[in-house]
């Protein structure tokens, strides 16, 4: 059974008179332990799909099953709990709370599930250790570099040990060298058992994934494992 199973998924927006189909009849299966790169031009529906899988948004039509359970019918409270336990979000713009230190940012998902105090401190410390930010725990976001910010965001995403990590252009705001190190970190998470879905514009980064799905106008136009693709495009 696929970990993530998307069937007949549609998401339409109305802007004035016009109806925009952000996601148009998508069918997709993602197995546990896969690392998926979603590529495609801006506005092709990549981010919308991520939001739908992450239960931040509800589809106009279709179902999304995670571990066999449809998440499109969850109530607000259930969806919140689902995001907290099952999904780790990583964003292009890091999205840390500016008033909180690195450690406090990392602790937030724990606080939301009722883990605070020493237990939370210990977990946050080890998460920050695992992304190489041992000495930066007390720093505020404005005292950290872009790469460091994204590593704090990764620590926050993995603190509740979610099976699925959704990364929306995680290297988009980083220089190439830092971007590579972040991608390596995500690959390490994948090897550790997390299923990763990464939206990216960077073709080199997409190649690090086990499978690449290409979007255009809300539709999947190609879906191939990277091994095949790199073989077929060898020498290009």
């Amino acid at each position, binding site marked *: 059974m696929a970990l993530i199973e998307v069937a007949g998924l549609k998401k339409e927006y109305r802007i004035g008179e016009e109806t925009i189909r952000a996601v148009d009849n998508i069918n997709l299966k993602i197995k546990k332990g896969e690392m998926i790169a979603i590529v495609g031009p801006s506005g092709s529906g990549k981010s919308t799909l991520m*939001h739908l899988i*992450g239960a*931040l*948004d509800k589809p106009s039509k279709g179902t999304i099953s995670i571990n066999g359970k449809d998440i499109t019918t969850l109530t*607000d*409270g259930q*969806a*919140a*709990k689902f*995001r*907290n*336990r099952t999904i780790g*979000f990583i*964003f292009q713009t890091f*999205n*840390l*709370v*500016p*008033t*909180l230190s690195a450690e*406090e940012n990392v*602790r*937030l*998902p724990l*606080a*939301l*599930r*009722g*883990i*605070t*105090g020493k237990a939370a401190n210990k977990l946050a410390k080890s998460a920050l250790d695992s992304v190489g930010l041992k000495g930066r725990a007390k720093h505020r976001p404005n005292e950290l570099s872009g790469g460091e910010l994204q590593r704090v965001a990764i620590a*926050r995403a993995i603190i*509740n040990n979610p099976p699925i990590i959704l990364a929306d252009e995680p290297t988009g705001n980083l220089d190439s060298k830092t971007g590579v190190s972040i991608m390596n970190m995500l690959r390490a998470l994948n090897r550790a058992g997390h299923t990763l879905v990464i939206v990216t514009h960077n073709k080199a980064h997409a190649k690090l994934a086990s499978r690449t799905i290409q979007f255009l106008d809300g539709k999947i136009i190609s879906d191939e494992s990277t091994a095949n693709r790199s073989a077929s495009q060898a020498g290009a």
Partner: protein
Amino acid sequence: MKRFNKPKVDSIFSTIRDNLATTLEFAKIGFRNLTRQKTRTILTSGAITIGVVLIIVMVSLGVGVNQWLVSQLSDQMDLTSVMVLSKQAAGKTGSMNIFGGENDTSKSTADSPLLTDSTMNSFYDIPNVELVTPMTTISVDLAKLDGKTINSPMVAAMPLRENDPYVQESITGDYHVTSEDPSKVVLTTFFLRRVEGISEPYDSLIGKTIELTVPTKIAPTGFLSTTVESETLTLTIGAVVNVGLDNTDMIINIDKSTELLAAATELTTEEFLSKVGYFTATVKVDSPAHTEEVAAIIEEMGFVTTTTQDLLSTINDMLKVVQVSLSSFGVIALVVATLGIANTMVMAIFERTREIGIMKAIGASKGTIRWMFLVESSLIGLLGGVTGVIIGAVAMPLFNLFIGNYLSGLGISAGDGLFVLPIWLIAATIGLAILIATIAGIYPAQKASKLDPIKAIKYE
């Protein structure tokens, strides 16, 4: 316009119940947010502070004045006394001066009983009555003592017995003398403080004489009356007493006063007593528990009674009204403060839209966001409330000092102070401040909880 949904109170309470630790974490974050915008927080909670200070000062003044009055009155007027007036005297709107105005009160209440010697005796038949003291007052134009003239002294006439409850403190001499001796007078410290050149100790005054100019014939002139004829009464000072808050200047023999009053109305003493009677009587009972019972029996006999307990409860009621009206200013200030808090919190939503989106992405439900904002606005209330209580608690001893000094200059003891800050008031005002701030946060919290997380995350 969008419909404003009532926040789901149940979900709020379950949030508290389930995640107290989380709530504390939110309180920490909320506090951080408040310290981030120091000026705004101070200004917003300042409105709460003003309201709290107003309420605290007004209610403490009410509580303090109440305690002070009750203690003063309980000291001065013992709780075992029943003041008795005839209905005629009571009908004269408090005026005891039979010389003043038209003497026609006997017509309207002709049937009601008078305070005569026989009624005095009948009071003794009521169980638990210990002592009955009749009293009259006479009008005196002038008093002359040691060559000093004092205008219109208050002269009362009554028998003063051993340990008489009317006497607060015997200063010098033997105050019972006036009961037997019509040529003696007992002066009060209240009077002597007003006479220039006389100061404590008052021992040297005993045996000296005081001259009183007593009108014997009066012509009514409008509201006032003019003395047509008067006589000079020379009395020997027998004692000096302190009668507390009572404004009586001196006490003379009651038979002497009845004689004077009778002469002025061209009656014999016997006729005067049977037609007019004594003005008031004080009936002392054996214990405060019997006061109301005895008062009721006397009322049934056709008299008007007042007890200290009546007076205290009347004063209490009046003070409560004053207290409530004064503290309502504070409540108005608090209500106005809610507008400020609501505005601050709505502004905070715009500033922290992205943060709200992040919180939702990492697992905050609508209820959680709502709760975060409510915690934060209640913190504004807590901050304003505690500041207000501190300001009030610091200001009160200063007020007490100034007012105490002022009052002691007037010869009045302010006791423990006129501002008394009880613990319940501190708890209640802080609680009220938090409650009001939380109410102010409901709308912003609701608004914040409804933000679309995707738009919120992308919000610049």
